[in-house]
């Protein structure tokens, strides 16, 4: 199981606590509402056996006109056959405490796994929503031998929160694939306000736009890490992804997505 071990930066801990207390006030407004989620995934490049960057995005909508309930967990299941053997992603470990204390400068660039952004809605006010423009994914300390992905988000006004939360890559069988299970913390909106609702997230995990560094012959050398590899064969219909979502109101949703098989060369 994924575990949320660090939620909110010291500067915003009070906001989080306040928001959590106000959940009781907020919940009745969404009674009877449910969420639907659409999922999009990609391999870039989409080439059998090649190092790739996995892209995923999801969009949450309410089945009513009300704002969707805050997201509490995401479990992204990866297609069987994804190859982790030769990837050099996550050559350094980022410690959550250092991330909270110093931001991204507290961790080695070699711990970066990917990046993304999110769009959130506030449960009050006239604006339709706000973007959290920068979410970074980093390699965290392993948990029970499993790969841990740390997500670091730094919201600015009006969503002033520094968040570190983790996902854990679990594998349930001898067939490579697995699922990245992430507990999503409540994101405080403003003092004395309820949590925001995540509307959409876009993220990538992979070497695209990442630069790592090593030392060779006494010099610092930049290089692009190797990503996970696309499976060597593509099942009929494409590479299946699925994701399950849970929400603060107790509801859940499942979304599926398929990455098409690469075109065959003629």
């Amino acid at each position, binding site marked *: 199981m994924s575990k949320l071990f660090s939620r909110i930066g010291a500067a915003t801990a009070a906001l989080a606590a306040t928001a959590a207390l106000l959940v009781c006030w907020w919940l009745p407004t969404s009674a009877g509402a449910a969420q639907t989620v659409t999922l999009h995934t990609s391999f870039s490049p989409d080439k059998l056996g090649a190092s790739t960057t996995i892209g995923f995005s999801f969009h949450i909508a309410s089945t009513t006109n009300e704002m969707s309930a805050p997201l509490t967990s995401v479990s992204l299941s990866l297609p069987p056959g994804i190859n982790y*053997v030769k990837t050099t992603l996550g050559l350094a470990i980022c410690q959550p405490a250092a991330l909270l204390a110093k931001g991204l400068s507290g961790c080695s660039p070699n711990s970066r796994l990917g990046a993304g952004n999110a769009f959130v809605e506030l449960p009050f006010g006239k604006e339709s929503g706000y973007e959290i423009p920068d979410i970074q994914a980093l390699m965290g300390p392993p948990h029970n031998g*499993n790969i841990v992905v740390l997500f670091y988000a730094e919201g600015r006004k009006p969503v002033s929160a520094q968040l570190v939360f983790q996902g854990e890559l679990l594998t349930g069988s001898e067939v490579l694939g697995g699922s990245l299970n992430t507990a999503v913390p409540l994101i405080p909106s403003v003092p004395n306000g309820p949590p925001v609702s995540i509307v959409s997230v876009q993220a990538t995990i992979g070497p695209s736009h990442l630069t790592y560094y*090593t030392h060779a012959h006494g010099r610092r050398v930049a290089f692009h890490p190797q990503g996970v590899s696309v499976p060597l064969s593509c099942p009929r219909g494409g590479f299946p992804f699925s994701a399950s979502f849970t929400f603060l109101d107790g509801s859940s949703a499942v979304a599926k997505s398929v990455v098409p098989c690469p075109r065959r060369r003629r």
Partner: protein
Amino acid sequence: MVAGIMSAGVLTGAAGLGVGISSAAGTSAVAARTISLSETGHLHRTSSSGLKLNEQGSASGTIKGTIYIHLNVVSPNRVTAEVNIYPSGGSLTGSGSANYSVNGGTASFSGKLSIKRGTGSYAHAHGSGLNFSGTIRRLSGAVTVRLSGSMST
């Protein structure tokens, strides 16, 4: 297959006693002995294919020689391995499985390995439950492996 299992049983008993025995036909004697292995190997990657990593290097310890390891990462936290050691006068082949985990720049594995067969001086080698562990430097592919336990020959 049955004969093979029976033969292994005889050898195991002999190894435990540390004495030579005669075969059922009485035409030859087999001097079985138990060797306590404590090996360390330093290997480099020679190739990789799919989920397999092929490593070659040198083993030192109780037995010295060239060592080859074929690691098959069957899941993000499980690896199977075939190990071949070529000491002077023979060879040893073993296989096993181990837990596997990634921790930043290194991956580590730890599990059990069995000696399945041998050639030359180690033609009757066998053993099971040997401790098998190691680390992989993820960027370079270099592997350090440790193998310990008892083997009968």
